């Protein structure tokens, strides 16, 4: 029956979410560690800084993410890797919502498509408008 199918689909979703979350976190933390090491290699120090190059500002998340792949970083490779790590970390829960919408749509569970879609639209707007 369809209940059985939904149950199996939910298990698949749980598995997919689990892999997505752990991959996102591991990749971003590795990038942070490499970034910090390279930062030290470039600047010879690890001081907490308030300079413009270490502050993310003035752009929305999606533009920022795309720019990472075709503009040169101003602060050197270390800062670039740290930025990329944070960008991937932020993307992880976002992709988790996208994944959920897709799974519930395949399951034809309209209620949960609407619930997850609402969260997805809200986050997309909030990451775009600011």
């Amino acid at each position, binding site marked *: 029956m369809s209940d059985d199918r939904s149950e199996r689909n*939910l*298990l698949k*979703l*749980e*598995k997919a*979410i*689990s*892999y997505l*979350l*752990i991959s*996102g*976190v591991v990749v*971003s*933390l590795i990038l*942070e*560690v490499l*970034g*910090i090491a390279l*930062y030290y290699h470039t600047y010879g*120090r*690890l*001081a*907490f*800084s*308030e300079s413009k190059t*270490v*502050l*993310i*500002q*003035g*752009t*929305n*998340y999606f533009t*920022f993410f795309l720019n990472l792949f075709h503009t040169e970083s101003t602060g050197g490779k270390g*800062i670039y890797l*740290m*930025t990329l*790590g*944070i960008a991937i*970390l*932020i993307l*992880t*829960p*976002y992709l*988790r*919502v996208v994944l*959920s919408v897709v799974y519930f749509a395949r399951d034809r569970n309209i*209620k*949960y498509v609407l*619930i*997850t879609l*609402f*969260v997805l639209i*809200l*986050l997309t707007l*909030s*990451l775009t408008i*600011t």
Partner: protein
Amino acid sequence: MLDMLSLLLIALPVGFLGALTGLGGASILVPLLVTLGVPVKEAIASGMVTIIATSSGAASSTVREGIANVKVAMYLELFTTVGAIVGATITTQIAPVYLYFFFAFFLMTSFLKFHGSKAKDPALSENQDSLSRWLELHGSYYDGFFQRNVEYRVTHALPGGLGMFIAGLAAGMLGIGAGAFKVTVQESILKLPPKVASTTSNFIIGMTALAGTSIYFASGLLNLTLMGPLAVGTTLGAVIGGRILNRLGNRTLRLLFFVIILFLIIQMLYKGVRSL
């Protein structure tokens, strides 16, 4: 002077203690950073990003094991994400002095966590309201302590959701997970079994933190030299803390918890009064 290595080393025991006490990393981290001289708003914004890592890392296993309830989480995220966006917007607008007092006040709600989370056999609730039933909010998991499958049904989905809006608001405003508050709402209003409540709360925290982060993103408060080492340190600490959690006695944990919270409340009040 603060540097990234010392931030990482500070974050390690913070993540460790956060996992041990169930308090999460950021509610310890943010006041600690403030004490060390980091501007309060930057500490809050970085705390928010940091908990995406700790929450996602921990949720990865509890979701796969079927303890955290994905549907309950997604329903409640409707409320926490809206709350976090409103909360974070408030923080970017108001004077920092209020944040110290809000933080101290909210830390006090952490004491709620120790009410009603005794290890009693969770009973299946009889009356499920129509909204909770319509939303398919029920589930089951295998409880290692009672060595059996525990079935449960969620009740009071609407008031529970409103409680989660408040949790999201506080989380977004203060850059924390507000885990203790979330767990209390889930146990006492939604009637989730304690293990499902704490793991589902942790799962939701990642999404709430993303909503808060989305506001902080363009505000110029996200500092790479803070976020990087903090995310690495707290997550590693939390992994180690989660592993030894079962070996520590309840009394030791409780004492540790009270001492830490009390210290942080005093710190934030002191900072607040000094900046008046």
